[in-house]
């Protein structure tokens, strides 16, 4: 399971650096939330590998556990009610779950950084953005204020904020949404060797012309400083734009994993196929009057049984689906699917024309 992209020709625009070196390895992570109504198993038996310099996207709908997965890595899960039940998260060989709080904090500021969906709530409103970025340098690298502040201006320039020296003196509310997100990215880069950037829906709150620019910025930066990116999104368009490899999640479980071309060309899980078919921009709908929607709704995580969580919405469902969660099926070239009936899937692109 750990060896994949090696066999694939490096044609992806994001391909560079050594892909084989493993940066982060999550194994068998289980995260639960203990709430009044019961236990929510937000992430189940999840394993992930992020290689150096690669962009891994976690894609799925609300409540599928993609943010919880990200928060497990830098341990931002509120405990209680949350609990990491089992598993390990190895970053450069060290198990993050066994580190002391102070060690984790040091790592968060220097190697694993995070950008959030809503930059207005993630930035501190009473400090200028320059101060906030400088603060990272001062606390983690023991820099003097003046040096840290000029470093902050350099970073604002790196993320292409116009007139960075003046903007560094602006408060978050004085910046537009796109500029705030750039400032957030600058803050995430405020370390000597950024290894992994976790971006949790970084463009969801932004307009589409701004989104395009932020995505461009992220791919440029990734090339420039050879960091890895864990990108969390619900938008298959963003996946198509950014991903090297894709993990599709549904109701807390990984259901398919493959490189981005395999996901779009040969989706093997009915849910992945359903997601692609739900996109109005899918070229198959050029002359069609209806979308092929996935019927039904996401199940309640509190009452989820042991079977495949997608069973109640799946067109290919069989008896076994409701009882047993499927084993991983290795389709070669790093493509893995968790489905009992993946062989039956119908990928024909011709919908009934109106």
């Amino acid at each position, binding site marked *: 399971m750990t060896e994949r992209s090696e066999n694939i020709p490096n044609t992806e625009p994001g391909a560079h650096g050594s892909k084989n070196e493993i940066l982060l390895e999550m194994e068998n992570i289980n995260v639960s939330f203990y709430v009044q109504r019961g236990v929510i198993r937000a992430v189940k038996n999840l394993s992930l590998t992020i290689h150096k310099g690669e962009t891994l996207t976690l894609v799925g709908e609300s409540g599928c556990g993609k943010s919880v997965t990200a928060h497990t890595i830098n341990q931002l899960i509120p405990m209680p009610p949350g609990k990491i039940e089992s598993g390990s998260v190895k970053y450069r060989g060290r198990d993050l779950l066994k580190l002391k709080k102070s060690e984790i904090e040091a790592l968060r500021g220097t190697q694993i950084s995070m950008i959030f969906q809503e930059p207005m709530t993630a930035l501190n409103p009473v400090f200028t953005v320059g101060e906030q970025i400088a603060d990272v340098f001062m606390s983690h690298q023991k820099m003097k204020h003046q040096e840290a502040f000029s470093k902050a201006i350099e970073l604002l320039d790196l993320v292409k904020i116009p007139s960075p020296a003046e903007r560094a003196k602006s408060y978050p509310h004085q910046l537009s949404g796109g500029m705030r997100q750039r400032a957030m990215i600058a803050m995430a880069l405020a370390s000597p060797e950024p290894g992994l950037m976790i971006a949790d829906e970084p463009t969801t709150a932004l307009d589409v012309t701004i*989104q395009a620019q932020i995505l461009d910025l992220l791919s440029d930066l990734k090339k420039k400083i050879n960091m890895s990116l864990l990108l969390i999104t*619900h938008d298959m*368009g963003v996946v198509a*734009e950014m991903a090297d490899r894709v993990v599709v999640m549904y109701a807390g479980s990984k259901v398919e994993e493959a490189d981005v071309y395999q996901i779009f060309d040969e989706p093997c899980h009915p849910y992945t196929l359903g997601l692609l078919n739900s996109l109005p921009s899918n070229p198959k709908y050029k002359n069609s*009057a209806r979308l092929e*929607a996935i019927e039904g709704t996401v199940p309640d995580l509190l009452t989820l049984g042991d079977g495949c969580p997608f069973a109640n919405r799946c067109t290919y469902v069989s008896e076994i689906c409701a009882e047993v969660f499927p084993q991983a099926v290795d389709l070669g070239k790093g493509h893995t699917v968790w489905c009992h009936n993946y062989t039956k899937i119908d990928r024909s692109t011709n919908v009934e024309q109106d």
Partner: protein
Amino acid sequence: MNRIDRNTDLLQVHGLKKYFEVTSQGIHKEKREVKAVDDVSFTIKQGEILGIVGESGCGKSTLGKTVLRLHEKTNGSVLYRGKDLFAKNRREMKDITRNIQMIFQDPYSSLNPRKKVGSIIGQPLRIHKQGTTAEISKRVEHLLDEVGLNPRYRGRYPHQFSGGQRQRIGIARALALDPDFIVCDEAVSALDVSVQAQILNLLLDLQDKHKFTYMFIAHDLAVVEFISTRIMVMYLGRMVEMADKDDLIQRHIHPYSRALFKAFPAANPRGRASREKIVMGDVPSPIDRPTGCHFHPRCPLAESRCKEAYPPLREISPGHSAACWVV
């Protein structure tokens, strides 16, 4: 795709303006105007789905609300079936509002959390005195069924439903009085993509059945492209381009429309290597719109005249118009 005959103008909008007054904070309080909708004219023909697309702050939602007189206009006129909406008094307006309805973006805040679903959907029927309690109750059950919800759920509260189901409740409420014209304001934006597809299909099914006319407001170009028959692109209060859907997809002339189409991520990883980068900065504040053409500071084609005056709307081909000096 032949939906209905499209000869009658259902809605005629002429030079519609909606300005909001804002007071700046600070010591020197200063009154300024946000020109949310600025001189917009268009018609909607019966049975048509007019998509309105633009980024936040472009005035698309204000336009939708002003067209239904949920906002009073600043200037201009809105004729619904030839009758001026803004010339009506409250009683006359009530007769018209039966036929014009709205579906809102946020299915969480647009339903009263303290009322049962049956009561929410039945409210328009009670306000307009459409039958006895028993008749209304029967109609509510029918409406729930029509939007794909179990009629037994009528005694539940909104929080007991998922986002997609709540949006169905909002749709049922809009259908209650059997309207002709429905404004959908970002009706699917808050939904997950698989649920979004269900709701889009539902809106189209309902349109086929009841011959509705929709004004479909969204920021998501793919959704607007899919559902609309005609598309209007808005930028900072103005209409910058309008054309039939297929025409616009093939030829988007205005530099802003081009940027919008270019920025929209295609559902195909193979496109990304060839995709042109857009470098155009951020949307300016609607309070401080740039002079001349509002798009000129971000426009790659801007010339000196673009800074001086706003370009008039020009017809490029029949049914296709754009407001740009250069192209």
